[in-house]
């Protein structure tokens, strides 16, 4: 009897399940129809938008998840905010900029495929690039494709138009910057500061060494130049100490540097590993002074390295985010408007660099458009017409001069120092004025 009831019950339940199954099926079908309708409508609308001829396509390759994402994330935000600003203010002579922004995680193969996507699929007119490794790897390709490429890598190797005619940079090139930093230290610190008085008076040569990711083209780009400058100034040059870009512990390298007795260290990585190195140097009492690339010198350095960063010298590409500079209001406004989720106090100089990058690209595209040649060769020519252009001054950048024979954007090196836990500008050196006989021979390395 019980069994029958169960069977009956089971049968009854099965009927309900079957009905529910039918209902579910109907819901599924309806959902699929709605999704399909959305997709078709979306594609139709995007097709209509895609027909908009008044559009300029700009590709941007960013690292927001890879080894240099410590500085890459904020730059990506800056690039997007700046593009929005220029779109809100008339775009490229009335043409809207369509930004194609992709993350490549600092993986060279992905940079290559993304570039090809820009070229063949998105059909952009120019690319805002990122790292030295990928930019230098892509250089032969972009030159063959005649694709203007404004990269965040300011490697000196990219500045000689004879070798890399379509590569441009938006800051003082790494090599000039590195030469400037060591020259500044030699003139202003070694020759003047009481810390080095004893050694100086003994006639000892200052000992110099580099703390860099030796496998990274980015970190090694200016090393030949800085060692050349060090030799010229009379330094004793020590070995390179390998600090990976993602290093958290550098004690063995610091101990080795200590046994060499280094007086001045060059840090060629980004902020994260440089602050790890500074902390270990501080903890182990290295006693040396530190100079560093502009990719290591930002608002986060004192936050990460604390007192270990006090007094360190770095290069400054443009204004720090919270400094005073003419464009501050719009930079702040767009930061708040487009990225309200990122606290303003956490934004850095990298965002301003994003603005500088887009501003320079927009100027070149505007000039090319006016000349009626908004294409690769046209934009290249437009870049090369810039003479003492003032547009970047409002972001704390330099006067821009780019010629068909020299793509180094400026010779003025701006040096900063961490004082009271804040990076601050302390001086400028015009390397062309200081070394007029050498300047031309420094092109392209």
């Amino acid at each position, binding site marked *: 009897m019980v069994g029958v009831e169960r069977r009956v019950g089971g049968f009854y339940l099965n009927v309900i399940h079957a009905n529910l199954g039918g209902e579910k099926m109907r819901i599924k079908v309806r959902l699929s129809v709605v999704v399909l309708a959305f997709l078709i409508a979306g594609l139709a609308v995007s097709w209509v938008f895609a027909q908009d001829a008044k559009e300029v396509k700009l590709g941007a390759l960013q690292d927001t998840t890879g080894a240099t994402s410590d500085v890459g994330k904020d730059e990506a935000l800056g690039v997007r905010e700046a593009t929005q600003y220029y779109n809100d203010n008339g775009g490229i002579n009335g043409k809207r900029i*369509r930004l194609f922004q992709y993350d490549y995680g600092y993986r060279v193969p*992905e940079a*290559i495929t993304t570039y090809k*996507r820009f070229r063949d699929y998105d059909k952009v007119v120019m690319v805002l690039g990122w790292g030295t490794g990928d930019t230098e*790897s892509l250089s032969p390709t972009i030159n063959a494709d005649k694709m203007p490429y404004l990269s965040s890598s300011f490697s000196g190797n990219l500045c000689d138009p004879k070798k890399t005619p379509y590569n441009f940079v938006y800051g003082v090139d790494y090599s000039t910057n590195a030469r400037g930093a060591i020259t500044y230290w030699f003139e202003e610190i070694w020759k003047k500061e009481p810390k080095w008085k004893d050694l100086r008076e003994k006639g000892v040569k200052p000992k110099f060494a580099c703390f860099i990711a030796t496998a990274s083209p980015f970190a090694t780009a200016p090393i030949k130049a800085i060692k050349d400058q060090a030799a010229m100034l009379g330094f004793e040059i020590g070995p390179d100490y390998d600090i990976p870009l993602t290093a958290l512990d550098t004690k063995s390298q610091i101990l080795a540097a200590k046994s060499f007795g280094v007086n001045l260290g060059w840090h060629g990585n980004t902020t994260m590993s440089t602050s790890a190195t500074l902390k270990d140097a501080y903890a182990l009492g290295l006693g040396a002074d530190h100079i560093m690339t502009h990719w290591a010198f930002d608002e986060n350095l004192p936050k990460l390295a604390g007192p270990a960063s006090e007094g360190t010298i770095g290069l400054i590409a443009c204004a720090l985010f919270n400094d005073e500079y003419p464009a501050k209001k719009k930079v702040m406004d767009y930061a708040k408007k487009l990225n309200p989720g990122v606290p303003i106090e956490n934004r850095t100089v990298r965002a301003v660099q994003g603005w500088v990058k887009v501003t320079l690209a927009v100027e070149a595209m505007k000039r090319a458009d006016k000349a009626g040649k908004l294409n690769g060769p046209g934009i290249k020519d437009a870049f090369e017409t810039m003479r003492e252009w003032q547009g970047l001054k409002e972001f704390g950048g330099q006067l821009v001069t780019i010629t068909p024979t020299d793509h180094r954007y400026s010779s003025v090196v701006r040096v900063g120092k961490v004082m009271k836990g804040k990076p601050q500008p302390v001086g400028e050196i015009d390397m062309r004025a200081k070394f007029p006989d050498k300047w031309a021979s420094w092109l392209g390395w």
Partner: protein
Amino acid sequence: MGYRPCGVYHQNYRQDHAWWQTRFVWGKMILLFIATYYIIPKFAGLYLVSVANVVGYTILSAMGVQLLIGYCGQVTLGHAAFLAVGAYTSTLLMLQLHLPYPITLILGGITGGLWSVLFGLPSARVKGFYLIMATMAAQFITVEFFITQYVSQIGGRGVAFSIPPGTVTIGPWTVQSDMEVYYLMVTLVVLCTLIMANLLRSKIGRAWIAIRDNDIAAETMGVNIIYYKLLAFFVAGFFGGIAGAFWVTSLAAVSPEHFQFGWSLWLVGVILIGGVGSLHGTIFGALFMTLIPEGLKFLIFILTQEPFFVNLMPFLPHLLEKFLFVKEAAFGLAIALFLIFEPNGLSYRWWQVKNYFNLWPFSY
């Protein structure tokens, strides 16, 4: 081991050992040949061709890993080192000695193979985790030390350098554009797959598989396990060297950054997803690991920048940076899900599908 379709009976060994045993398979392979050599280059567009080049590079790179892990049971986490050896050998021979590319390609492969044997030597004594550590040492000693500090300095070009256009030539043919690189890639992938497949069904392949399944049993059966393990390292390093030497043609540049530890791990991921111990698995894994990130990139772009979605949901562009992380996370999740739900990889699914049709309608 697949099943033959219903009604196909073999009457001699020749039929039984043929590569392609039925007309249907012949037809399929001819179609594949036409697709790879004609349809894809003609209709896919340069972007897809360049993605295909990365897929090809991944297949060539993962081939050696598949051989070592999947067929010989020697887990390796340093395979990018042998790619680097091949890439630098080929590039420097072209730039310094002006040797023709095909010769540098083969020399790159041989150097990669010999270098691999050097780091395979510990496999004579150690197994499992200890061997993994030894192969990791290969990665760091080779790329971070030898190549970065010494090999890349030959010729004074610095640690990373480009290859001038027109350097890579095969006879009268200059390999420069993506399309030319594509044809080179397809040819190399076909050749390497054929070599590998042939090796696997020979005495050597059977010895490798015996070592993988139980090395002590293999030794009692008379397999010289040290010899065959080292041979596996040589062949894996050879394929790695070929992959590295191919990659420089695609990139026209070489740098130690291309051969980091991450890439060695990536290659193990390729064979895990594709299927360990399967040649198809290498190809499926390479396709998956290259196409999925590209597809996700496309999806994220549509969601955050396509006017339709942006107008519909204006907050989407603000999530762009978050989405970029989602892409990485989704990828990690895909690997984890694969390991849980598809531990035999994509090739197992392929095998099932193939058998289903072969046995149809009498699958029981």
